[in-house]
């Protein structure tokens, strides 16, 4: 079965977010809610939700036009719309009776063989299907999305005894390929995987912080980065989720968890927190949470709650000896002889033991548990991977010393790790105590797996080259923040040398990495230091080397396919502009943001944007419109908030591909690279018909207007003036004499070198590096 159309019932935050994400996947979706009691429009509730979606930040839609795929309606007049859909997601209030009633109403109208799923996070499937028709039970399952549905990658899927396996597989497949989710099969147990462990972890971490007398900052500093958990830690996370939500989740878990579940003894209400909730300090959405920004008196002071007094006080970034001393060594952190080390020990022991005790109760394999925590709570490593980091033996000892029963799985491991690499393949320990290979779904190719199985073909300090099979070579950035430097350029050079004419062992090049961000651009810190000591020739060489390399890649006799995800800014965006094809993850954020640091794109970015604008059918003909288009995009340093938006901004071409699931990105890119390699010829060289000074004067007039309105700062005028000069072909250009690509690049370089020597630009770079924010000078 295929899912051509879908419906979501319930237009709250979750329901509307799920509907938006169906639209992001190109699936038309009906969004129904109860009829409005007042007003003329009985569908006002769902329609209002749709309007809210368009204003929400971060945006639930990858592109505003996706809103057209959502048809809002109400549950009385529009129930018939369900007859057309293949999958109905129920996301209404967590009340079994209300849900049962709804199911009874939709069952008769829905299409034969269509799937119904509930987004419940607390009600067991068995309860939900009670009293429903046999056919309903066969078509029913739970699909548990995380908030916000577009961005959170985890999707927990639960089938009942009677659920058709075929339907379950079809939905899982749609979620994986079209919605881009990491699908984890769970058993029908309370809280499924992620929340079951996550809520226990939060409770334990709060209890221990209170008992050991840690401040919230200290607790988060221990439980965050050192454990591979987002730096929000645990208190910061509760601020995000909402303090008031926690008692609700606790209540529902306590109602359904097994009698002897460890959560029951961990659960505790803390008076300070209870009072905070009562007074409206419910987190970021409320008056403040464990942290807040106090803007009193026009200031901006970060404050944190004192867990003893419940009063806010100035928040200081803690410098913990334990964290500094331990570095990456988690065991050293847990062994550190102070209260923060004790805290790490207690949180790790309880949380990981709890997780380990839940297999096979909540999932058949440890892999599902690890996946759930990584995708649902953004842990860098899952519980079993964390136990491996500590050592299963050491962990068993830790449990004993903390007075916790050693989980049977840990006993059974008997010192063996939960994961091992055998013949280059990742294997995990099964509940039977033997190793089994971790199998990736078809069409999933992970660099992480390749890296486990092989050594790099070549590497230096900032990049590695990997053999990803079938004659395709992959460049992976490995520098800090994937910043681009001379070593990255050297890696491209090496790759070109290896691939040669593309007719030997190697056929194509893919540029990809699995970091959060593809690349945030050139290494500015290095550049600033070089600037400060006035080593201009070295700066110019950095610019030239980038131009040379990117051009060589563009005209190489083999295809180059880039597969970005996350931020691709500045020089990281320019490499995409030079690739034959970009296979972008849907969550790719491209932008030429050089103007923000007082520069212009000079690794061919201006030139390529001009070429794209000229080639785009939506841009009117003639020399000026493409120039104006590129000028607007670059001068405003626009960053696309999705791959779809990048197409609008022409950072991506209409022909470039978008992959919804990150795990499928590399395979898609590789397939495209091989397809192109079959009959490849490099692109023809372009020339540009540009107006020269007259065109530049027009743009400058425009700039002056902006400056007068206060929309452009004095240095904006300087920087964008240079940009105007480049995009219009320089002082000697006129429409009768085409400008070559080489000339364009030389203009970019010249403008860049002039800017880099201005105080305004140096100030911008320095400000960006020291504060992380652009300077408006």
């Amino acid at each position, binding site marked *: 079965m295929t899912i051509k159309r879908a419906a979501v019932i319930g237009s709250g935050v979750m329901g509307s977010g799920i509907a938006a994400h169906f639209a992001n996947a190109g699936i038309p979706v009906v969004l129904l809610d109860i009829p409005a009691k007042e007003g003329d429009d009985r569908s006002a509730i769902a329609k209002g939700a749709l309007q809210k979606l368009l204003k929400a930040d971060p945006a639930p839609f990858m592109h505003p036009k996706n809103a057209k795929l959502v048809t809002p309606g109400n549950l009385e007049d529009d129930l018939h719309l369900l007859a057309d859909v293949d999958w109905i997601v129920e996301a209404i209030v967590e009340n079994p009776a209300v849900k049962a009633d709804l199911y009874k109403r939709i069952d008769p109208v829905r299409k034969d063989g269509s799937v119904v799923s509930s987004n419940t996070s607390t009600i067991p499937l068995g309860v939900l299907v009670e009293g429903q028709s046999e056919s309903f039970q066969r078509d029913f399952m739970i699909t548990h999305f995380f908030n916000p549905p577009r961005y959170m990658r985890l999707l927990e899927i639960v089938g009942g005894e009677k659920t058709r396996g075929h339907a379950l597989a079809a939905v899982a497949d749609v979620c994986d390929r079209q919605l881009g989710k990491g699908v984890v099969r769970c058993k029908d147990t309370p809280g499924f995987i992620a929340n079951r462990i996550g809520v226990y972890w939060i409770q334990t971490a709060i209890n221990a912080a209170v008992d050991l007398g840690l401040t919230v900052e200290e607790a988060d500093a221990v439980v965050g980065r050192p454990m591979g958990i987002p730096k929000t830690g645990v208190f910061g996370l509760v601020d995000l989720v909402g303090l008031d939500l926690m008692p609700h989740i606790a209540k529902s878990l306590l109602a359904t968890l097994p009698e002897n579940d460890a959560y029951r003894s961990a659960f505790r209400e803390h008076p300070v927190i209870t009072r905070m909730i009562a007074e409206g300090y419910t987190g970021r959405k409320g008056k403040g949470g464990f942290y807040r920004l106090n803007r009193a008196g026009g200031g901006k002071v970060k404050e944190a709650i004192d867990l003893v007094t419940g009063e806010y006080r100035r928040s200081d970034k803690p410098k913990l000896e334990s964290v500094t001393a331990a570095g990456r060594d988690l065991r050293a952190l847990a062994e550190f002889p102070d209260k923060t080390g004790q805290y790490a020990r207690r949180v790790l022991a309880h949380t990981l033991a709890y997780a380990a005790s839940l297999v096979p109760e909540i999932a058949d394999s440890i892999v599902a548990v690890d996946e759930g925590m990584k995708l649902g709570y953004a842990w860098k490593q899952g519980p079993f991977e964390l136990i491996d980091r500590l050592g299963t033996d050491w962990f068993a000892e830790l449990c004993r010393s903390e007075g916790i029963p050693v989980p049977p799985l840990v006993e059974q491991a008997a010192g063996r790790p939960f994961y091992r690499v055998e013949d280059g393949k990742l294997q995990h320990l099964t509940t039977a105590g033997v190793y089994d290979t971790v199998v990736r779904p078809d069409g999933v190719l992970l660099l992480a797996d390749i890296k486990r199985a092989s050594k790099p073909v070549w590497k230096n300090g900032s990049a590695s080259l990997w053999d990803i099979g079938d004659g395709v070579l992959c460049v992976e950035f490995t520098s800090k923040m994937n910043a681009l430097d001379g070593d990255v350029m050297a890696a491209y050079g090496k790759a070109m040398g290896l691939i040669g004419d593309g007719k030997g062992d190697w056929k194509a090049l893919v540029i990809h990495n699995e970091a959060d961000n593809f690349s945030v651009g050139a290494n500015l810190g290095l550049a*600033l*230091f070089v*600037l*400060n*000591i*006035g*080593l201009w020739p070295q700066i110019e060489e950095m610019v030239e080397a980038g131009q040379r390399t990117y051009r060589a890649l563009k005209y190489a006799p083999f295809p180059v396919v880039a597969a970005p995800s996350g931020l691709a800014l500045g020089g990281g965006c320019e490499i995409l502009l030079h690739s034959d094809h970009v296979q972008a993850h849907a969550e790719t954020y491209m932008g030429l943001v050089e103007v923000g640091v007082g520069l212009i794109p000079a690794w061919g970015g201006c030139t390529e944007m001009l070429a794209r604008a000229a080639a785009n059918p939506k841009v009117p003909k003639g020399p000026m419109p493409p120039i104006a288009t590129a000028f607007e995009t670059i001068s405003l340093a626009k960053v696309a908030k999705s791959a779809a938006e990048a197409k609008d901004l022409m950072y991506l071409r209409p022909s470039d591909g978008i992959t919804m699931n990150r795990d499928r990105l590399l395979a898609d890119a590789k397939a495209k690279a091989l397809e192109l390699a079959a009959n490849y010829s490099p692109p023809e060289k372009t020339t540009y018909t540009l107006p020269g000074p007259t065109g530049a004067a027009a743009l400058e007039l425009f700039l002056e207007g902006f400056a007068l309105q206060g929309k452009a700062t004095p240095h904006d005028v300087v920087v964008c003036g240079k940009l105007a000069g480049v995009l219009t072909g320089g002082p000697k250009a006129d429409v009768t004499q085409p400008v070559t690509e080489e000339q364009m690049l030389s203009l970019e370089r010249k403008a860049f070198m002039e800017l880099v020597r201005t105080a305004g630009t140096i100030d911008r770079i*320095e400000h960006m*590096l*020291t504060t992380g924010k652009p300077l408006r000078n």
Partner: protein
Amino acid sequence: MPIYKAPLEDVRFVLDEIVGAGKLAELPGYQDATPDLIAQVLEEGAKLCEEVLFPLNQSGDAEGCTFENGVVRTPKGFKEAYGTYIEAGWQGLSCDPAYGGQGLPKLVNTMLEEFICSANLSFGMYPGLSLGAYNALSTYGSDPLKQRFLGRLVDGTWAGTMCLTEPHCGTDLGMIRTKAVPQEDGSHKITGTKIFISAGEHDLTENILHLVLARLPDAPAGTRGISLFLVPKFLPNEDGTVGPRNGVACGSIEHKMGIKASSTCVMNFEEATGWLVGEPHKGMRAMFVMMNAARLAVGIQGLGLAEVSYQNAVAYAKERLQGRSLKGAQHPDKPADPIIVHPDVRRNLMTARAFTEGARALGALVGYQLDVAERHADERTRKEADEFVQLMTPIVKALFTDIGFDAANIAVQVHGGHGFIWETGVEQYVRDARICQIYEGTNGIQALDLVGRKMPQDMGRLLRRFFHPVAADIEADMETEDLAEFVLPLAKAFAKLQQATAVIAQKGLKDPEEAGAAASDYLRLFGLVALGWMWLRMVKAARMRLATEEGNAAFLEAKVKTARFYMAKLLPQTNALFITIMAGAKPLMELEESAF
């Protein structure tokens, strides 16, 4: 008998051409500091140094300070000389008129300090420390403290000291043990022992104000737990006269290699009454702010000794008749040629001269930027000047004191056997110069400050304040043909400095020991380039004046020739330094500790 004449003409040249004529008077509050007024002041100061202080230098060295029953006596004549000094108002030259000062720029005082240090370094220690105490108190002291004490420091009737070092800690002040216990009246009781306290006790003034670093009871460990206190020798009465003796006394004085007329004391504080200066636990910050001025002042000591050493070497080289020139007799009328005809004697003299004049120019520039950092109307200009001063401070301190010591040694060498004799007077300069390389942060510490703190700060922002103007000056004259012999060597040395900077910064990020191993060589390389820059600017100015027939042609021609010597004979040392820097830490570190 040694000789000394204050180098007034060169100072005027440097003020007009390196700082810029009239630049000081453009700063708010310094409108009166016109070139002519400054010249007059310095002329008067020169007289004082030549006629009053200089004659006491050798006798002071012979006699030294004496310690008896807790009382320290300065050598004969010092008290009278000090009286002359303060009566003429020299102590308050650069102090706030609100407290009786003359309100002249600090740079003017810096130039005067050079003369004082040439004439009598030991004497200079006393007013120098008082001025340091004045700076600390006027910057950080509360209004009541300032009202009570600043006037006396300005008129010189009371003196000041800085009490930092303790028996177990010098460089590492985080280990300080001296205690300060708060009293109900807001004062503190200070208890502890301080050593190496210059001017800690003497007979020049009726009272002495000690600025003491100590720990409050609740102080965190390390340098973040140190506070600054003012502790007078005698507690003042309400009417400002000297009252009862405070619980501070000199335990003994040191017997030293040099600056013998400057008393170096062990100071014992026993429940001495003191008052907090600035905020609790922020004493080191106050110290750091003053350190730029203090380190610049020590650099100027080096400069002063270099100048007087050079003058004596020249005088001797011209008058000592011995042998004949390698080219044959140059003065056939005399029994022998003066030794100045010899290339090697010339090498010595030119080296001392080129370093001294270059250092004077750089010292003036840094001193001027210190005034700009304090006084300029524009905040950004102030900040940039402050960054320049921060960067250049360790270089001025270490390079100038090395130059001072080297020049003193040169003077001894030129004097031959007579140089080794006390009566000749130049060996004193070697002994006096030695301490300048050690106190106020050893020169090794200065080098570490440069590579470890100043270089990486804000990704090299401080460096910009030096590298950009130098790059601009080189670029501006790169094509000027008749400057080629000056610009090209500087350009080459500057490129080496740029490369070394980039390499050290990069290596230092991964391995601080690499930066540490390069530090002293790097500071020297930096300093040589900085002096080269000064010489380029001086030679341009001299050429300009010669072309317009303005000023003393002989003086200006000599500038050009000295510049040529510097570029050809001294600046190339940068090549060797570059090579040793690139050799890295390994040759220093590989020998096992046990093998030493």
